[in-house]
């Protein structure tokens, strides 16, 4: 372990991370307490559950921060294969079905979503691949990069989890871009993505409920009580929050639970309604700081592998934030992507913390003498 590592933490990053996490806990509490209380249950039940994961996440962040990415690089292959195998497992009888999708693995008291781990594994694998190739990238490398993403994407498609597939696509584009892809390759990939997406819809490879869910946001009035119910309720909640919000526990939408799954996917709704535009702006500002720090870390990375990993992590966060908040204000389809560090959910929080930890470890070692050629 690098004896100087803990001496050079990125305090801005850590403070932002902790602040977002704590704000997330408050929002989860405000969203779930009235409902629990009305039922005569412990109003802090959901809060306590999430607080535990936040604590675990902090510890994971701290531990991963100390890990040297150069060491991690040696295990990228096994990590990638392992996480891909977990995606296979989730499709088997071990997987747990929630609603119509099968995304969970049940390990007794713990349940987790392998797709969250897969996101990190894919970033590591992509970075490892590109770190070995020259700049600009050859078509061959681009093809391999696509393959790296395609395998887990195919498995996730079977779950099915369209949101994660979109994350993969965006991360692939971003990492290839910062990794030295030519403009021609970028153009090709962009066109290919558009053609592929249209093709998937046209060939009806995705199930009709997925199309419904993705397109309901365009005309929510027509399905006000069905598909886009969440989105319409969420939009009303955020809009009615006004400039300064209705105040904590005063959100009629959030507290009356007109917005379902608000503590997980729709947590931003609680922010928008209770704290208004100011609160929303603060949350977006905090995420901006986080992303600015991540991009700075990328630039300061000691080697190309670390650089690509951090860029990948930043892209992943950025895409999650954009899709998730966009969904709550009805400019993006409902995809089930969580808001990093705020949405309730154990695997997500811990996995995101680990990803952030990876970036932080790059920061800690930014001036390390060992070069990775």
């Amino acid at each position, binding site marked *: 372990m690098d004896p100087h590592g803990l001496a050079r933490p990125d305090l801005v990053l850590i403070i932002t991370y902790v602040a977002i996490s704590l704000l997330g806990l408050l929002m989860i509490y405000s969203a779930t307490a*009235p*409902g629990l*209380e*009305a*039922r*005569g*249950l412990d109003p802090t039940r959901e809060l306590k559950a999430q607080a535990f994961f936040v604590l675990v996440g902090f510890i994971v962040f701290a531990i991963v921060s100390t890990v040297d990415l150069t060491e991690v690089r040696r295990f990228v292959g096994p990590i990638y294969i392992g996480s891909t195998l977990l995606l296979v497992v989730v499709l088997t009888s071990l997987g747990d079905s929630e609603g119509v999708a099968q995304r969970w693995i049940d390990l007794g008291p713990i349940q987790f979503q392998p797709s969250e781990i897969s996101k990190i594994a894919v970033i590591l694998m992509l970075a490892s691949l590109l770190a070995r190739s020259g700049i600009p990238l050859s078509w061959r490398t681009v093809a391999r990069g696509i393959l790296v993403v395609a395998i887990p994407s195919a498995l996730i498609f079977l779950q099915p989890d369209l949101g994660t597939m979109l994350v993969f696509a965006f991360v692939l584009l*971003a990492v290839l*871009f*910062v990794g*030295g892809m030519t403009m021609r390759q970028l153009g090709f990939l962009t066109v290919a993505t558009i053609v592929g997406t249209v093709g998937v819809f046209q060939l009806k490879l995705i199930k009709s409920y997925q199309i419904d869910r993705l397109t309901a946001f365009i005309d929510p009035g027509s399905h006000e009580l069905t598909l886009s119910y969440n989105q319409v*309720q969420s*939009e*009303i*909640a*955020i*809009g*009615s*929050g*006004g*400039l300064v919000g209705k105040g904590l*526990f*005063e*959100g*009629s*939408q959030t*507290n*009356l*639970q*007109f917005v379902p799954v608000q503590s997980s996917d729709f947590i931003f709704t609680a922010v*928008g309604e209770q704290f*208004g*535009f100011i609160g*929303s*702006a603060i949350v*977006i500002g905090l*995420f*901006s700081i986080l*992303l*600015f720090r991540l*991009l700075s870390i*990328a*630039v300061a990375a000691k080697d190309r592998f670390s*650089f690509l990993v951090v*860029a990948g992590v*930043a*892209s992943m966060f*950025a895409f999650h*934030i*954009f899709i998730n*908040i*966009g969904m709550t*204000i009805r*400019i993006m389809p409902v995809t089930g992507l969580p808001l990093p560090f705020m949405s309730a959910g154990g695997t997500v929080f811990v996995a995101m913390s680990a990803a952030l930890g990876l970036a932080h470890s790059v920061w800690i070692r930014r001036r390390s003498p060992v070069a990775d050629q």
Partner: protein
Amino acid sequence: MTSPLRIGILGLVMIGFFSILGIRLWTMQVTEAQAYETRAEDNQVRVVLTPAPRGDIWDSKGVKLAGTRSALAAIIDLALIEADERGPLSQNLAAFLDEPASEIEELLSATNLGSQITVATDITDAQATFLLEHREMFPGVNVIPQPVRTYPAGEVGAHVIGYIGKPNEQDLEERDDINGEDFLGKAGVERAYDELLQGVPGVVEYKVDARRKVLSLENEVSPSAGGSLILTIDSEVQAQLQTSLQNGLMQARRLEMEERRLAIEEQSRDQRVAQALRDARAEALEQALEEKEALDAAVEAGEPTTTTTPDDGERRIGPVEVDEADVLSSLYSGLPIDADGICVPVQRVTIPHGGSATVTGIEPRLAKFESVATVDGELVAHVVVEGKSYKVGDHDPFAGTLRVLEISEDRLILNHSDPWCPIRAVGVVLDPNDGAVIAMSSYPTFDPTAFVDGLSVDQWNSLGTVSAFTNFAVQGQYAPASTFKTVPYVLALEENYYPINRGVGDKEIGEEQTGGSTQDDAPVVSTTTLLDGPQTPVNPEDQDEDALLPLRSDTDEYSCTGEFRFRLNDGSFQTKRDWIWPGAHGPLDLHGALQASCDLYFWDVALRLWNERGDDSGIDKENLLQEYARGFGFGSTTGIDLPFEREGLIPDRAWFISEQRDGSPRVRQDGSWVGGDLMDMAVGQGAVLATPLQMANGLAAMVNGGTVWQPYVVEEVVDQDGNVITENQPTILNQMDLDPRTTTLLLADLQQVVNNQERGTARSAFRDFGEGVELIGGKTGTGEIIKAPRSERFRQVDSAFFIGVAPVTDPEYVISVVIERGGSGGRIAAPVARQVFQFLMNGPEGVTPIAPGLDAD
């Protein structure tokens, strides 16, 4: 391009992303915040639907048969509770309502019911207050006014009115305008006119706060009641019909019991068993001989057989055994009786494990439920009845009258049934001038109020097992027996088509035909052409019959003996016996034949139709009788405005072939449609089936000059202010072009059935009618039904029929009465009709008690 530059570009993309979010949030939360606030407020309003009162149901004279009263109901708005809240809530509700928690839980988890679930109907004010004051215990529970259906007339008109209930899956699928909490009509006009009766539910909107407490009432729209039905039913006539049917059925049961007691007195227990043994032995012997004959025939025909040398049948049958309990029950002593010693069609016997119960009967038996065991995964009970041991599984029949209904470790439930006890009485009164139904009922009946709160198990056991909820007037199908003779009667007059008087010259059956006037009127030489065409012999083999010519007119006399021999296609003779056999009717013309219900006359009409089938008259004689029957509305639904109406059946060759192809048990599997089938139909037996409504409606058409009206029970539907919403106009189903003479003669003959003191089959039943009996006409019928396979050996079971009309001078009423297993029409169905006619013609004071008439077909 360097990496930092590309990172910068990535950063710009992210800034672009976040800017989009920021702009959108600004427009929503700052620019358009007001609009969203309004929508959020609307969101806090919950909407509760309050059920509309169903429309009333009135009889034709303004008597209310169904209405509503106002009550309170506890409902749950499922939108206000979470899934895991349901457990404690159902516990609390269970304790409050004193019902099993599992039932309430089931209610709450029923997802097909919409968001509002009624958990308790008709709660007291105190209960309502308690629920509303303890919201923490009862989240989501609310109290709303709820109309409750009432039936002030009770059982009167129950089968026409029907009953209401909660919708089932199918109802919800078919109807968009109802939810799981609504009541809807399940039978009768409640069902047929449900959509008009429903009304429009009201709306209550109230505001709730963040703690789910109700803040204020926002808006309230009262429900508007559904349309009211005005029936064609006259509840006074209806009540009389029901009373008469009930009295008639009870009378039939008492008569049945008298016969049974006589039979028991005649023979001691040992004698009965000995007799049964002799019968069984004779039966076995007969069967053995038949087998032997068949075998001999096969050997003669040179067919290879596998059987060993045929020996004496007596030796081959071996020892014959009879079940003593079976014998006793067959001779009535072991059949179920009620506390008054009167038979009941079915009784339930429950025996606790290890205990015993009395199986009722004239000679009651003690049944002990000794033990229960599992054999091959099925429960088998060991039961001892009067010392005799039985091992029985589910649905097994045993000890003559018993059948297992349910076996469990705790108890044994048995059906104790009687296949001979008169089971049901059905009646219809119609206006022959427009098809309006004046009264309609089947007994046993029910009080529709029972369905409002849900039927109890006891009610279901006592009423459901005898199908008391079924309207047999439209759903019961019976062989109409001799009442159906009116059809060949009309055919004969209309087509000028009379039978060959085969009594003349036929020594076999000609003996009773002495001293009559037949000789004088019998045609000696006749060149009459029938049906506009020359008559040609169809079957050249029937030489002796061809020598005889048909009667020329309805007044030509026919020798109505007791027995009837006719030649089959293969040249062999078959014998049919009239109901009066071993007696005889003597010489009768068409009119006398109807009045005395002579089977032979109408058999011969059918036989002639059969023999002349396919002749060159251009008339499809094989199907002529069917054509008339169908013309009068038999064999198809009348389309009355009541649900579940059955078609009945007018059989013909095509039907026979199709049934045979389907392997139906209703037809012989070997052979084809034959003249005998047509002959059976002519007297309303064989495969022909009719509903009591069809019987009345067919008669109505015959007596009104040939107009077949579509029967109806709802005159009009009116709204709350008395404005007519819909009015049922009388509809003509078919117009039979009857010669006015036919109707006049039929009415005169029907009048004679009631009034002719020598041969009228209903004369004795109408003896005490009082004033105006000469205005009454009718026709009796006795249908043979054979329920139990062995009943033939002991006694045949008959159903009694009567169709009637009054006044014969200008018909205003037609009636049909069926007493299932009641005996003969003259004895038991005619007296029931007599009471109803007494009421119709002479008022309530004119009604005299039911007394059985003479046994006559």
